């Protein structure tokens, strides 16, 4: 029951934490995906456009090497041209370049590349000087036109990448702010819930602790009120039952003590009456002798003390023990008859009659 109660209190907290974690992870993952998108598309496009320009330079270098006799095979040249084609196709597949502003530029580049390829192929194999000059001029014109279209492409790609990156940064700031607020709220709610959960445990524990202390101090009438329908409630009920049993035990002890006192009172009164009568006879026969008077007075005083001690036993309200000798307890008559609230006692002043507490084990 207590476990269920704790689960009911904790479950919303756990759910709230899980939802917060999922929301945070989802937001950050989305941001990472968008960041990756910016890198793989936007900035990658910039790299690709720059690489396209580099391919044109590489083609020129390969042609130069062929004509200089440094290279005897055309494969590197062919691969450079093929790479330029592939690069242009990759650039065309990028969603950024669907913008009408730059789509025409890319289309122009893609149209001029086959023309460039034609001139490159001819230039790579032609030996005739006039034809080679013609082909070189055509190649350079095609290359310049391609470069002319590539530069604004690169600028557009860079600007687009920057715009996307700035937008991503703004979103990142918002996400950080929202997550911070969210975590603050979650922390506050967590504290409240945890405090409430602590109260569920600590309140009944405090009551039980106080009740136990009172019971330890001998207040068998103290009862604890734990209305919870859980283990603490059961513990409270058990405590009250224990206190009741202890109280009843104490009451029984009191009754036994009072019955014993009554018996003593009855028997002692009979004996004291007989002793008093004999004292009176002695006092009459002793005349005016002071010494005899004094002894008779002491005997009467002791009998009065015995009478008041027995009467005190009748008024014992609780059993309070004290040490008679180390290891042996006896009834502390003064405290046993003391009213706890007023502090008044019904016991005779032990200093006046030199009385000693009744020995009780």
């Amino acid at each position: 029951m207590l476990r269920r109660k704790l689960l009911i209190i904790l479950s919303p907290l756990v759910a709230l934490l899980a939802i917060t974690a999922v929301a945070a992870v989802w937001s950050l993952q989305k941001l990472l995906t968008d960041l990756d998108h910016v890198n793989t598309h936007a900035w990658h496009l910039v790299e690709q456009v720059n690489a396209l320009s580099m391919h044109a330079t590489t083609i020129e270098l390969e042609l130069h090497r062929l004509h200089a006799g440094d290279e005897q095979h055309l494969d590197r040249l062919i691969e450079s041209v093929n790479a330029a084609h592939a690069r242009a196709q990759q650039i065309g597949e990028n969603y950024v370049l669907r913008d009408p502003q730059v789509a025409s530029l890319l289309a122009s580049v893609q149209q001029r590349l086959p023309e460039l390829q034609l001139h490159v192929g001819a230039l790579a194999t032609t030996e005739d000087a006039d034809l080679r000059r013609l082909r070189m001029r055509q190649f350079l014109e095609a290359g310049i036109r391609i470069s002319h279209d590539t530069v604004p492409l690169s600028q557009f790609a860079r600007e687009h990448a920057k715009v996307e990156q700035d937008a991503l940064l703004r979103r990142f700031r918002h996400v950080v702010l929202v997550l911070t607020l969210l975590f603050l709220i979650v922390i506050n709610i967590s504290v409240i819930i945890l405090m409430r959960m602590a109260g569920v445990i600590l309140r009944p524990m405090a009551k039980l602790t106080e009740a136990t202390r009172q019971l330890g101090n001998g207040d068998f009438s103290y009862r604890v009120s734990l209305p919870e329908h859980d283990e603490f409630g059961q513990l409270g009920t058990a405590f009250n039952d224990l206190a009741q049993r202890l109280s009843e035990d104490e009451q029984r002890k009191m009754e036994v003590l009072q019955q014993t006192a009554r018996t003593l009172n009855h028997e002692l009164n009979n004996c004291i009456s007989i002793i008093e009568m004999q004292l009176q006879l002695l006092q009459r026969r002793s005349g005016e002798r002071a010494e005899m008077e004094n002894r008779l007075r002491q005997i009467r005083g002791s009998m009065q003390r015995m009478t008041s001690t027995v009467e005190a036993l009748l008024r014992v309200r609780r059993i309070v023990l004290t040490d008679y000798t180390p290891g042996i307890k006896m009834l502390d008559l003064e405290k046993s008859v003391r009213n706890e609230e007023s502090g008044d006692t019904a016991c005779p002043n032990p200093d006046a009659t030199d009385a000693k507490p009744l020995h009780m084990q």
Partner: protein
Amino acid sequence: MRLARVFLYGCLIVLTLALLFWLARSPRAPDPVAPMIASAAVDQPVFRIAIVPERDIFAQRERYQALGEYLADEIDRPVEILTAVSYAQVIEDLASRRVEAAFLGSLATVLASDRVGAFPVARPVYPDGHDRYCSVIFVPEASAITGMEQLAGHRLAMVRTTFAGHLFPAAALLKLRMWNTPQGPQPAWVGTHDEVISDVAAGRVDAGAVKNLRLEAFQREHPEVKLRRLLSSELVPENSLVLPAATAPDRVAALRQALMSMHEDDAGRRVLGQFGAVRFIPCAIKDYSALYDVVEQIGADWPNAQLPGTPPVRPAANAP
């Protein structure tokens, strides 16, 4: 209560695993550019095959790349296609063992046979049934040139160290005493047969000497361009696979078998289609008889014809 606890723990585990899988999604790095080597087994030495620019060098390499990938699977070695700048470079590559095979034109095959002992193995058959070609000297339809003699003073586009673009026109002009003389045409050494045709059609040169198969292909693609033939040669074998003399017999047999049986399976037929042929047939040096006739016709004028080295000697009749 116990069931609720088990259910709760199970939900937590599933949630954690789902979260981990979700977080593990990460972008993939772009695949690196694949090397232009058709590899059947990466740890095997590369089998290099040389080709010479005959038509558009980009399309030609793509054609031979597909053939190379097929052969790589057949001979269980990675195959690399090398495009040489000239026929002379290929012969040098064969001699230096830089390449282990080459697809060569007829003149280059004869020269390779004569210089380094190379031998042809197989040549393709095209869809129209042709496996040979001839040299054609041509002009634009509207040209005033009607015969070889009228080429004097004009520019003649040629392809160096080829039968169709060099040997035959040089032999024809030598016969007319018009070669390398002020009375003869001025050679314009162009790289490929396709460029010769393109330059003639564009009017950059006055005449050209090319393979008839390339001329006919151009005319099919550009029926609006009218061209007229001045002279044609005898038929000689189409470009064939040539192997050096030192090639191991099992390697020769493997390559021959791979090429001869290409048309028998779907993969081979697909590659043949990309290559532009329907099958391969055997080829031997004795198939180049017509070319040796032209060589012997040139005779001592061989150096004058700006042909490399010494004229190749016709092999004995019983040579393979």
